[in-house]
């Protein structure tokens, strides 16, 4: 039994890890470094992630590249929830990891996107160099290769949104469904 499971795991994880399709979600400064990672000198295609998708329904990696503010937070949550399983998140840049330079004095910046969505890889620095983003993708790949279908339940629990009643402004008045309504 275990032999079958590990063989399936191996094939499944191998194919998932080497075809991570990121969502183009470039909110600010880190987005430019993300573009640089795609461009000639760094070439993200070597790691199977060059297919940037405009629609969350076709993507399985959310590279959150840049500051998230209160106004943007519902959009981020909505995009994450629209992505199909399995999905992974890289928090790129200091702002997404914990508010960065804006954490202490700004009134509108979210202090870390892990308050809204679960994060797999944290990538600090302001902004991270393209090489660091490639390293983060490699680390995520090695994490994916350790997954097993037997632990599927715990995986989906881990990757469901932690948003609880405590996130007041986000859930009631700035309801995610309101964003699309004009």
């Amino acid at each position, binding site marked *: 039994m275990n032999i079958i499971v590990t063989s399936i795991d191996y094939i499944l994880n191998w194919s998932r890890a080497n075809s991570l399709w990121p969502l*183009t*979600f*470039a*909110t*600010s*400064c880190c*987005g*430019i*470094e993300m*573009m*640089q990672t795609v*461009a*000639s*000198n760094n070439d993200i295609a070597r790691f199977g992630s060059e297919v*940037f998708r*405009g629609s969350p329904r076709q993507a399985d990696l959310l590279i959150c590249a*840049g*500051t998230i*503010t209160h*106004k*943007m937070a519902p*959009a981020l949550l909505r*995009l994450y929830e629209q992505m199909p399983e399995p999905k992974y998140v890289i928090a790129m840049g200091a702002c997404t990891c914990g508010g960065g*330079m*804006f954490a202490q*004095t*700004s*009134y*509108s*910046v979210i202090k870390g996107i892990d308050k809204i969505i679960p994060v797999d890889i944290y990538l600090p620095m*302001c*902004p991270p*160099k393209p090489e660091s983003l490639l390293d983060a993708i490699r680390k995520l790949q090695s994490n994916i290769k350790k997954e097993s279908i037997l632990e599927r339940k715990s995986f989906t629990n881990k990757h469901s949104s932690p948003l609880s009643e405590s996130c007041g402004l986000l859930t009631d008045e700035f309801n995610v469904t309101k964003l*699309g309504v*004009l």
Partner: protein
Amino acid sequence: MNKLKLNLGPQHPSTHGVLRLILELEGEKILSCEPDIGYLHRGMEKMAEKLSYIQYLPLVDRIDYLAGFFYSELLCRTVEKALNIELSKRVKAIRLILLELNRMASHLLWIGAFLMDLGAVSPFFYAFRERELILQYFEKVSGQRMMNNYFVFGGVRRDIEFLEDIEEILKILPEKVNDYEKLITENPIFIQRTKNKGILDKNTAFNFGITGVNLRASGVELDFRSGDYLYEGIEFKPVVLDGCDSYTRYRARVQEIRESIKIISQALEILKSEKDLNQNLLNPFTLSLPEGEYIQEIEAPRGLASVYIKSTGEKTPYRFKWRTGSYYSVNLLRKLLKGAYLNDAIAISGSLDIILPEVDK
């Protein structure tokens, strides 16, 4: 025909960040456009009131991440002028070189991103290859690629090095720009998508507060560099083209890259003759501006940038206000997109070179 409301953004690959356009459509025709901004509002102006000048200085690069040097320079300049500090010739030349390199990097990125908006992917790779040369030079000099934080009140962090790298960039770039022009300028698809699209005449531009390349591509010779103290003794000609459309704005930016190359080579000559880095560095811990109001301006890649500081003599400013070029360009979209077709919407908004942190501050 039924009217349709289309929501473009805030997460859209072609809106250069988090711009949201609410378009009212009739068929393919845009009846009205309402930009919705603020998705990247970080409260920069309020933060300035809570922080001292030296604490605020590193944050300033984040206002425009493609041209961070300009905003650093603007803040340093305001403080220096308020306290009557003279810069030595070498410091001025260093700042000038870095500013113009940054302008080139910004325009190069714009060429790549704009052409990608129109569906051409290869210019993106070419433009980013050359931009990487400039960024790697910035990293050598200041230790950071984009958020350099290199200018300080009264001078620069340390003396500039690796001049041979700049000379190499200046040697490589003109050929590469020629290559882009061969690839893009005469391309029939590109011409069809941009020529006579997004017409911005002179009076509309004045009325909407448009400055910078967008204004000069409408035939107005207004370049705030000509009165700038950094550009004293430097010969340069503002790029003024009379076409008013997206195509002209593209040509103006390409020509500005060539103009920047000329400015940098002149500044390099100054740098070679002036060996002495005479810095008048201020003590950042006791720094405070005398009571009063201060306004300074600079010609940034995306139009006029200016800063207003009201000081009461304390260590933190009483009021801090940024004026950025992109903010007014976004407002202009309401006018330019009205009556245009949906497939031109991205081409027109891309040609104005909007960057969102500058809009949202």
